[in-house]
């Protein structure tokens, strides 16, 4: 009897399991599949306050999809048929018109008619004024970038009438529009934000970190955010232009890259983000998947701390630049999804030149330079790589083996991501791989200022009196010819003195199902605008 009962039990369990197997097709799924875009993303968003956001890619991408700002990049169709947001051409966005007056000392912005926030509140010049007042009061990153372009504070932003705002520019320059065409300048709804401004938190930062309801101005609004699970964008009914082609975007957090690949191949998601380079090569063979690939202006380099011996010795820096296996790193580590970096100013940025880049992998030359540096065979250095980045770890291995051939012994020191970032920002790293810096403003002096002169981001402590003087003189200047000549000279010095080991500019790669189309690429910020995508 007992045995019979246990058999019935086993049979029941088996039956339940089998009933659970097999693929269920939920009713209506096919009908609304075209209305929803499903994206597998690698991580969650963090802090959504536009003017003081965390710098992780999905936070910034969401801000870019749910907010609008006054000035944006002009859409241009390239000869290959691909439309891009041209990084150096600007048009009004919330603004119907923008024009520079008074010899570049005033920016006059006229808003479009009948603009509304996502809760239906009107968006007028007062909202713009409120946004910039808050931005300057908060005095965070966006304020710094605005002041960099010589709009110095609250008093520089004046309401002329309901639809017109005037920005006073202390010194005419080429940086302002590029610095304004980004999420930090999202216009915010005073009716929504003001109630959250308190004495302890006068900029309502705590509320804006995780809320956007009622203040969105972009094609989408943030419909829901389940931390650790997903965030969902839905069509903003009050968006000023045509509605997005796909009304809903579900961004599901799938941390494991192999799982994201499997989901894309099976068609469970429409787009898989941040695939491993080798997986990108694999999906190239899949007939149901499209792989978009675009060049970026992101610079990835080996930093050599010029304030620390022996890297203060220019001959050693040159020796290392002749020892590094450039081609191997691009072929093996980046599996071809990168192009060589040949100057501190990346290819694709105005004034870039590769004519001063003489380095190629040449161990004999490296050895000779090492001897000239007064350093013997067997010089020992420590290389720091990020433990959480696969490409950083592989590069460490290639650098170690290549430098050994030139007589330099490398010890690899892997650092956890948070510790690496902390040491990087304190300029304490000595010999390391910088995985990538993107200058959102496609202006060579914006780029050179941050990476070679600023107190925050000159991570290698490299200095040259001549470079410092040129950057000081030409960052704020409208003399394009003089700027071009100065940029050329800076590239010459920094390349010859081996300010960094110039490694590569990674490609931006996006893998989608074949039925996804319409992608518009924005080289300036390398962020996906879901607005343009279509799904057949």
């Amino acid at each position: 009897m007992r045995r019979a009962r246990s058999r019935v039990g086993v049979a029941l369990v088996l039956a339940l399991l089998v009933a659970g197997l097999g693929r269920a097709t939920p009713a209506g799924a096919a009908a609304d599949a075209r209305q929803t875009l499903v994206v597998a993303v690698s991580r969650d968003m963090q802090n959504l306050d536009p003017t003081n956001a965390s710098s992780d890619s999905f936070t910034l991408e969401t801000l870019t999809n749910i907010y609008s700002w006054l000035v944006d990049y002009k859409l241009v169709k390239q000869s290959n048929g691909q439309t891009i947001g041209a990084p150096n051409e600007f048009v009004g966005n919330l603004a119907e018109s923008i024009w520079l007056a008074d010899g570049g000392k005033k920016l006059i912005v006229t808003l479009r008619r009948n603009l509304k926030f996502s809760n239906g509140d009107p968006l007028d010049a007062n909202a713009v004024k409120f946004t910039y007042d808050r931005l300057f009061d908060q005095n965070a990153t966006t304020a710094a970038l605005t002041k960099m372009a010589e709009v110095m504070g609250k008093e520089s932003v004046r309401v002329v009438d309901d639809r017109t705002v005037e920005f006073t520019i202390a010194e005419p320059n080429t940086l302002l529009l590029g610095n304004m065409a980004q999420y930090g300048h999202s216009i915010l709804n005073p009716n929504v934000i003001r109630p959250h401004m308190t004495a302890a938190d006068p900029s309502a930062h705590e509320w804006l970190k995780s809320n956007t309801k009622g203040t969105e101005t972009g094609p989408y609004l943030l419909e829901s955010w389940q931390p650790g699970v997903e965030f969902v964008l839905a069509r903003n009914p009050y968006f000023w232009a045509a509605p997005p082609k796909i009304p809903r975007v579900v961004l599901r957090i799938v941390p494991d890259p192999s799982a994201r690949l499997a989901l894309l191949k099976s068609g469970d998601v429409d787009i898989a983000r941040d695939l491993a380079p080798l997986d990108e090569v694999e999906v190239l063979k899949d007939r149901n998947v499209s792989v978009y690939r675009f060049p970026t202006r992101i610079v990835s380099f080996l930093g050599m701390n010029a304030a620390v011996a022996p890297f203060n010795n220019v001959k050693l820096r040159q020796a290392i630049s002749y020892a590094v296996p450039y081609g191997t790193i691009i072929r093996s580590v980046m599996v071809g999804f990168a192009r060589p970096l040949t100057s501190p100013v990346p290819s694709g940025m105005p004034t870039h030149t590769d004519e001063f880049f003489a380095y190629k992998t040449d161990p004999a030359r490296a050895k000779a330079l090492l001897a000239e540096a007064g350093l013997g065979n067997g010089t020992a250095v420590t290389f720091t790589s990020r433990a959480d980045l696969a490409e950083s770890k592989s590069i460490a291995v290639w650098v170690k083996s290549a430098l050994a051939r030139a007589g330099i012994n490398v010890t690899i020191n892997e650092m956890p991501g948070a510790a690496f970032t902390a040491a990087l920002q304190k300029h304490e790293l000595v010999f390391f791989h910088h995985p990538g810096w993107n200058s959102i403003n496609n202006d060579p002096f914006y780029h050179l200022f941050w990476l070679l002169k600023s107190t925050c981001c000159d991570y290698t402590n490299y200095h040259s009196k001549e470079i410092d003087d040129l950057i000081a003189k030409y960052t704020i200047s409208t003399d394009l010819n003089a700027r071009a000549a100065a940029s050329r000279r800076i590239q010459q010095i920094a390349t010859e003195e081996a300010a960094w080991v110039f490694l590569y500019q990674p490609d931006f790669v996006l893998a989608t199902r074949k039925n996804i189309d319409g992608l518009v690429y924005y080289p300036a910020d390398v962020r996906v605008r879901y607005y343009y995508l279509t799904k057949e």
Partner: protein
Amino acid sequence: MTLVTFVLTRVLPGSPIDQIAGPMSTTEQRRALAAHYGLDRPLWVQYGAYIAGVARGDFGFSFTTSHPVADDLGRFFPATFELTTAAIVAATAIGIPLGVWGAVRQGSWVDHLVRVVAVAGVALPIFWLSLVLIYLLFSTWHLLPAPMGRLSLQSAPPRQVTGLLLIDSLLSGNGPAFVDAARHLVLPVSVLAFAAVAPLARITRTSMLDVLSSAHTRAARALGIPARRIVWTYAFRNAALPVLTMLAIVYGYLLGGSVLIETVFAWPGLGRYAFNAVSSNDYPAVQGFILYATVIYVAIFVIVDVLYALLDPRIEA
């Protein structure tokens, strides 16, 4: 415990400000942020404020999720609890009979099987096993749903009562959600259970062998008591104490969250939450998680102590 965690998180290199300030921030902006979050105060003042907060049930705000840590723990706990409990139930249902069987038929093929399972459960990396199972059961044979969390996108989640999807879907009479949640559980539960079966089967076998070779079992045999009754009524009850302890250790360990499983299956549980918190120096989240894990361990062992007393009348509560 709280003091150790508090000090440890702060002596590790890096601070949450590095994560939230952004690369272009100036020293003054960092200082302002540190002041805003109270990280500029002396350590003992911060610790005092933290303990006072914990006493009120306030664990502080997470820097990475921007939510109160207590809310985060409450949000991520049900996913881990459901997964872990299902796995421990499955592991018990398989591991204990397997261990008993191995002991009773010592030296037989069953016994060898138990030993193979025990070794495999320890030796096979669960990360690898998960990927193989996903490849076969999802990618190749399409038998199980995509490894993207606890429910399919098409499933409407049941009204939240306990946060446990199986129970909530039953309570709200949402049959499709129940089936969907159960199907999503099959793979991660199988992998976790597979890893948990090994220690359970091994300790059950060893403990049973001890008891079966003892004088009182031989006496029972001599009295002609049926073998089945000897094994389950007399021997197993005596062998159960170490098994229970092992069960508690495994359960406590799993409830701490399995980072690998939760990562591979995109399971929004505490393991991943803690991993993200540690890797971005999110002090309040790390502290909150360790406090939670400590409480869970203590709670499980209190329950085990009570069960001890029930199983063995010689142990007084």
